[in-house]
């Protein structure tokens, strides 16, 4: 560090940058056209180092699973420009959605743009947004039977999307031509550009006020402080090795469960997370590209220690070992469309290992299935794609029952208003409520899952990509597991269950058919017989638990 930074300036610069990325998050959401970004919050914005792609700051309301994945995506652009020896130019923006470069799945498209100050690129601005459609065989692309990335939609490597502030019309047409909802997609893409532009303008004010040297000195100092904070948190965990394991139902193609295993070793101020013993890559879409696995690990640590600011510094004290060729280190051309469920399992596994070391801090497992359901069809000749996030029960923690009907732990999706979905899609909801008896029993009870049924009012295609139909969210320290995921639907009025657990490949439903989803509850904490009898009475009175379930 060449410049001494006084504590007030450091706090101001940090606060300002947090504010910039938060505002970018907000602008993207406010200007978006798709429900999945506007209400599902399935997006993230950040600032990154121009030379390395390292994270400088990331929006506090961004979807957690992009915690580290964004850094991979930005680094992919940095590497590409180095490889072809092209400099950053003002007004450029690069686009990619390749999950092997930037994590998650093809639906998450990243935009990366430079921030220039006095003729020099000093920082990078980037964001990601979930595209409702990516031109896959199945609308919305949550298909449980894909065997290769090629079936999951259009795959975009790093490509220049805008030059001198103007969108490249040919790239835009390529995207539109590969999309069922080209207008919505273009609107969302422009909201991503809006967010980058607002971020750029706000940064100019910061640099104008404090000067480049001071701002960049703050960036380095903040990085170091995050690293030290993470080390302090690790140092407070007793040294030792803590393990946990679980399995995924199946890969959507065979019926064989997929084994996941983790060993966390804490030694002084360092931590190693090792996935040795995890099953090899599967044939279906239940694989994670490495950036997603890394992101899931940090998401879990952030859920455990929420006060650590996100930047490259907080990633340093942790060493990750992911066996190559395993289901957590997918290479092309493997399919990765089930990433959200696998990532949820990784997040829960780390918590299940840590709870043995720090029972007051970590907790029992929350539900871990994204279980996204996509319903698609046409109304008056206009195509629609309805993608719904999934709510479920959270694990109990020391001193508290689990949350009832929480959002997926990998993200921060808010369920759209039921009324809005009925305005937009030809569906009518029959019920949306608490799923009784679904929270794992314990001294503190796991949160209940949710239960919903809707009726389609036109012919549609239904696909569901879900998990935990055979392996429920685990309880800890004597607590019991939550209820399993339960999916059913009617075809011409006859109730059916999926052949593979909670996975439904494209099924044709007709007007009047119904879809029913009962999400898992969270795991319990501590032996159920230690539960306060007054709380058992209350659970019965409120119907969270039925008399048979209270025994």
């Amino acid at each position, binding site marked *: 560090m060449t410049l001494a930074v006084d504590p007030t300036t450091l706090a101001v610069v940090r606060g300002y940058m947090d504010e910039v990325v938060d505002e970018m998050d907000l602008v993207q959401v406010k200007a978006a056209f798709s429900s999945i970004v506007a209400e599902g919050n399935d997006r993230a914005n950040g600032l990154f180092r121009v030379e390395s792609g390292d994270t400088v700051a990331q929006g506090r309301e961004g979807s957690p699973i992009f915690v580290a994945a964004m850094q991979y995506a930005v680094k992919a652009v940095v590497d590409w420009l180095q490889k072809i020896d092209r400099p950053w130019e003002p007004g450029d923006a690069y686009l990619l959605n390749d999950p092997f470069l930037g994590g998650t799945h093809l639906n998450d498209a990243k935009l990366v743009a430079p921030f220039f100050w006095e003729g020099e690129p000093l920082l990078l601005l980037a964001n990601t947004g979930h595209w409702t459609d990516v031109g896959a065989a199945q609308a919305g692309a949550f298909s449980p039977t894909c065997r290769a990335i090629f079936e999951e939609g259009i795959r975009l490597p790093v490509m220049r999307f805008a030059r001198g502030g103007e969108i490249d019309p040919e790239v835009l047409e390529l995207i539109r031509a590969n999309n069922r909802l080209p207008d919505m997609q273009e609107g969302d893409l422009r909201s991503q550009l809006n967010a980058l532009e607002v971020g750029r303008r706000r940064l100019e004010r910061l640099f104008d006020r404090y000067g480049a040297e001071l701002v960049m000195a703050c960036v380095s100092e903040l990085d170091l402080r995050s690293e030290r904070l993470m080390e302090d948190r690790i140092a407070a965990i007793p040294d030792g090795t803590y393990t946990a394991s679980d399995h995924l139902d199946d890969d959507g193609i065979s019926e064989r469960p997929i084994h996941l295993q983790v060993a966390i070793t804490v030694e002084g101020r360092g931590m190693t997370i090792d996935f040795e013993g995890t099953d090899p890559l599967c044939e279906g879409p239940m694989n994670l590209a490495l950036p997603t696995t890394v992101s899931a690990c940090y998401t879990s640590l952030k859920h455990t220690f929420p006060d650590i600011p996100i930047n490259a510094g907080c990633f340093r004290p942790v060493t990750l070992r992911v066996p190559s060729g395993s289901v957590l280190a997918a290479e092309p051309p493997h399919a990765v469309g089930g990433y959200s469920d696998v990532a949820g399992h990784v997040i829960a596994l780390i918590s299940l290992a840590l709870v043995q070391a720090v029972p007051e801090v970590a907790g029992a497992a929350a539900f871990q299935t994204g279980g996204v359901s996509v319903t698609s069809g046409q109304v008056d000749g206009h195509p629609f794609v309805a993608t719904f996030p999934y709510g479920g029960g959270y694990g109990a923690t020391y001193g508290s029952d689990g949350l009832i009907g929480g959002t997926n732990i990998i993200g921060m999706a808010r369920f759209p208003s039921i*009324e809005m979905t009925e305005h937009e899609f030809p569906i009518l909801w029959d019920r949306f409520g608490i799923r009784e008896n679904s929270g794992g029993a314990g001294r503190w009870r796991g949160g209940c899952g949710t239960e919903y049924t809707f009726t389609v009012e036109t012919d549609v295609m239904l696909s569901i990509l879900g998990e935990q139909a055979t392996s429920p969210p685990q309880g800890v320290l004597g607590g019991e597991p939550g209820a399993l995921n339960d999916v059913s639907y009617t075809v011409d009025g006859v109730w059916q269950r999926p052949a593979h657990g909670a996975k439904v490949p494209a099924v044709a439903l007709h007007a009047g058919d119904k879809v029913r989803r009962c999400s898992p509850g969270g795991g319990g904490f501590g032996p159920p017989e230690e539960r306060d009898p007054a709380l058992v009475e209350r659970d019965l009175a409120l119907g969270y638990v039925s008399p048979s379930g209270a025994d």
Partner: protein
Amino acid sequence: MSVERPNLIGVDVGGTFTDIVVRDERTRTMTVAKVPSTPADQSEGLMAGVDELAVGPATVSLLIHGTTVATNAVIERKGARCLLVTTRGFGDVLELGRRDRLSVFGLRGTGNPLIPRDRRIEVDERMRPDGRVEVPLDADALIAAVEPHMDGIEAVVVAFLHSYANPAHEDRAVEVLNQRWPDHYVIASARSLPTVGEFERTSTAVVHAYVQPMMARYLGSLADRVERAGYVRAPAVVQCNGGAMSLRHATERPANTVRSGPAAGVIAGTMIATAAGFPNAITGDMGGTSFDVALVVDGRPALSDEITVDFRVPLRVPTIDVETIGAGGGSLASIDAAGILQVGPQSAGAVPGPACYGRGGTRPTVTDADVVLGRISARRPIGGGHLELDPELSARAIDEHVASPLGISVEDAAEAIVHVIDSRMAGQVRMMSVGRGHDPREFVLVGFGGAGPLHTDAIIREVGIPRAIVPPLPGVTSAIGCLDADVMYDFLHSFRQRLDEIDMVEANKIVSEFLAEGRRLIETGGVPVVGTSVVVEGEMQLEGQRHTIRVALEEQLESSAMEQAFREQYRQRYGTGLDAPAFLTDLHCRVVGHRPTDVGSNTVPTAMSWDAAVIGARPAYFSGQWQDAAILERDLLTPGMTGHGPAIVQQDDTTTVIHPGTAVRVDGLRNLILEVTA
């Protein structure tokens, strides 16, 4: 102002104290009283305080008040026993919310709905999104379903899907419930908030119902007392938007009073800072139980259209944006399981209060720490003659609960308690300034509330704000804000139509009806105003977007002007525009009745030292050592006087602590301007 009735009374009913200000509009002189709140019936303490000021009822033109009664009821879950009637299949909407969690990172904690699951009744009925009936409502079946649950119920909420599109079922349900239970408050969701979004609409109606019975009892009792005392007008009530409304309107829309006390404080803080020449201010109001922070940029308080009263308890009402944390004079200090000192958010409240009150409280509070440190005089406590403080009880409580467990001296423990609470408040001020992209060095902190000026200097030192204003009557600032609050009535109509498809004749009819109703409410509400103005705003978006931007519109709606205003604001906000058609979701109308305002006379300051106001000295503890602090009497401080810390300024409604290294001057409006010099 009338010659016979020159006095205005402003009242702020807080969790611990009730503050009362009487202002003689002829001379602008103010007299104040601070009396303990009486939670069982807040109007009792209020009237006792007014009586104390011996203002002849016949001389009072109006009593305006803000209150935390509603807020506290929600946060402490002490509101009415309510019943919620919903569309079959959707009784859990209130509890599930939008299926989110408490914070983006962290998976702990759970919800606590205002109406628990066994008091949520589902009935057969269903509207479609376009307002057509899918399943008719069976009113007899509704009564039969509700009947067995009505025992002990005080209020009923009816919240059906798509009622904003067609309120017929909700209205019918309210009608039959009112017939059967005429004494109950019954509210329909679409009548409280006629917009799409079942959870936010239901929650808003539920908050109204949850606080209505206690607010109705309280306001009714207040109106009775006021009338019996011989006042000519019914009291007016401040809302969270910073405007006043009639008492009758407050009884119908009681949730609008949620956070009204803090809003009135922001109104006063804004006027004080602006008059003192600081258009950019942060207001920090520290009372007995909470610390409220608001941001004022260019003389205007930041606004919001939703209050998150608690997790999964949204309240959609127009509001001044005030952030609150549990930090006040009554905040309790304790040592947690890990051996770490914690201060707040729990509070000793009005009863038993701090240990030094001698009312049976044995746990140490921030006030006890301030007493031990010599900052509060035991013989001249806040509230004047109501209490004699016992420093021995403070020392004993701190020793037992903090000093002994930590193995440190009582003074050091007291200073640690104060430091912890100051850091928490500084963090909140930082969130409101730095966290929103503002440099605190360009702001002034307006420190008020009964406990605020004790801690204002420490907060600006920690945040890096160069100066603070301590107004002449900091302990009763919210009550002063009530005196000058304009009268405001807000209206909302949901359109959800493309701009080019809206029948403008019809739309203008709606606007003029709203404005006429607003003017009627102002005329009949009994609050004298000097004129009215209107604000018309549209929630607009590009067709297909989910979110809106709020666009200021002309009173006379005109399609192309609306389109242009929207496009321009959209480009300003997002950098680029799009060709998609403009879409109007909701139309907001506000009618404002302006009250006469006068910030008071600005005396020309003279340069003189403050020795004339020094009445003595006593040891006070700063940074680990006892130092001799000058004791000053606030009444003796006149414009132009200057001095420096360590010093303690005493007055009836608060105590101002000036740290070593802080310079002070008294400005022409008798504000203390604190400036950090070292």
